[in-house]
């Protein structure tokens, strides 16, 4: 009995830090130091060649007052996140709910719907998207089959291009669907039986039992997906190169352009911290709203 206590209760700092060392080293070298460096550069004018000169907060001021492309990138990214996250989660929930019944071949459907999620981030899929929705692509050829000859493709039109990229995000709803599916399976059947006995209809049961029981999962996914959405890059870069007329220029892509096309390193670092601030605000606000809509079972 005595021994039992010693193995977990006693501090073992040496072993703890030995095990943590590889990660810790990486954290310091690849995160902490770059973070500090980046904060410093964000207050400087730096182009890799000359030594950085301190300019105070003027990089931050520049972004909000002088830089229209920054505003455009911000607008595009907000639009993207606000469209793709709710749509993807809603669709994932809808399909998960349909698959949460007894049918044959469910495993097959689940697998099929999940495939886009695992390949979605690749350059190959972005290439496919470009060809499917671009000039002389699948959509245009289908439209002309029905007699609608189009001059510009959906990707060539600044009004629709971003929606095609949103569509690609929604197409990858599979992983959220799997998470919802497993959360659905954990809802105790007794709840449904009780509601059924009380004469509640299907829709009512869905809104009053399924949704509240899923709110912790929805909440968690919402946060992860928002962070994910803000870092959209490959789609913007490979499919449209941010165009037409910057209508699909994502925030991260603009950061990249500033840093590596214009060697505007200081400014790019400032942009990075503005992004971190935006994500932090989203996360904090969401956490604050939690008590109004997220229901944790076992907590009264």
């Amino acid at each position, binding site marked *: 009995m005595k*021994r039992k206590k010693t193995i977990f209760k006693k501090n073992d700092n040496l072993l703890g830090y030995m095990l943590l060392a590889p990660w810790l080293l990486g954290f310091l070298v690849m995160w902490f130091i770059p*973070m500090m460096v980046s904060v410093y550069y964000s207050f400087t004018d730096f182009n890799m060649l000359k030594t950085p000169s301190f300019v105070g907060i003027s990089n931050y001021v520049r972004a909000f007052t002088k830089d229209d492309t920054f505003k455009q990138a911000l607008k595009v990214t907000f639009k993207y996140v606000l469209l793709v996250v709710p749509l993807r989660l809603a669709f994932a929930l809808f399909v998960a709910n349909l698959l949460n019944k007894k049918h044959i071949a469910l495993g097959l459907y689940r697998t099929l719907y999940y*495939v886009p999620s695992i390949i979605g981030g690749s350059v190959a899929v972005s*290439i496919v998207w470009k060809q499917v929705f671009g000039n002389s692509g699948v959509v245009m050829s*289908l439209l002309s089959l029905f007699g609608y000859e189009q001059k510009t493709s959906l990707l060539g039109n600044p009004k629709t291009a971003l929606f095609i990229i949103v569509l690609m995000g929604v197409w990858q709803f599979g992983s959220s669907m799997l998470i919802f599916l497993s959360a659905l399976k954990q809802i105790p059947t007794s709840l449904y039986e009780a509601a059924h006995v009380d004469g509640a209809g299907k829709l009512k049961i869905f809104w009053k039992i399924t949704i509240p029981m899923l709110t912790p999962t929805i909440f968690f996914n919402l946060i992860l997906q928002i962070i994910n959405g803000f870092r959209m890059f490959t789609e913007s870069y490979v499919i449209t190169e941010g165009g037409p007329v910057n209508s699909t220029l994502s925030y991260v892509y603009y*950061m990249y352009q500033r840093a590596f096309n214009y060697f505007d390193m200081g400014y790019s*670092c400032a942009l990075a911290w503005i*992004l971190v601030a935006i994500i932090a605000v989203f*996360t904090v606000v969401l956490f604050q709203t939690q008590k109004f809509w997220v229901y944790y079972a076992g907590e009264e």
Partner: protein
Amino acid sequence: MTMNKTKRQINSILFHIGACALGFLMIYPLLWLVVSSFKSNRTMFTNTYSLVVEEPAILENYMSGFEGIAGIPFSRFMLNSVIVTVIGTVGAVFTSLLAAYAFSRIKFKGSGFWFSCVMITMMIPAQVMVVPQYIILKKLSLIDTYFAMIVPWFFGGAFFIFLLVQFFKGIPRELDEAAYIDGCSKLQILFYILVPVVKPAIINAAIFAFYWIWQDFFQPLIFMSTTSKFTIPLALNMFTDPTTYNNYGGLFAMSVVSLLPVLIFFIIFQRYLVDGIAMDGIKG
């Protein structure tokens, strides 16, 4: 009773029709890519939507794709990708495993603080760190080396640490106790007792690491400049530049090749992936 039964049957048929239609839409882009990689360049963009190959040019497309670009054969890009992915995956999983074991089973000063650091790195997009990382690597003359592509992955494992900690938590501590009484050291407990038990989680983490590194575009795009050191995503990106390359057959063929390992791994390890997502509740 029979009314009910027919109704249920109709519902079931409707469900399967809907599910199949959605399945087709989901998989169509992939099918289209594979079929297009079989079509000749001449017929590729007439009736683009069609999944019928009218003029097959399979050998031609794949041979021309493997010839590569800028005088570098595609197999070179594949080799680069394999090197980066294999070492990166092993490194990511190993450092995460050690850290997760420390966080969940060893009591040490500051463990709470460091764990919150892990969570914070999960919240901050890696893209934010890329410019300063680039500057530091440049100063160390490590830009445009395999090192720059591989080593960051060793430490980018916040997600895996979190996942493995969740798994370790689910293993009864009596297992450790028993081994300890039998004379195992804490390291032996990890490798002989716990690793076999958390094997599904380790495989799960390894597959996700493999996917992310194999498909990663952002980091190599910034860190690499010599074409012969490019990974597959960078090579494919070069293929899409119409001023240097306009062989769509080759482009599509190599796109298929780039997705093949991902899909093969998916088929083999499907069970681990789907169960893993169900367990940790987060995705990659």
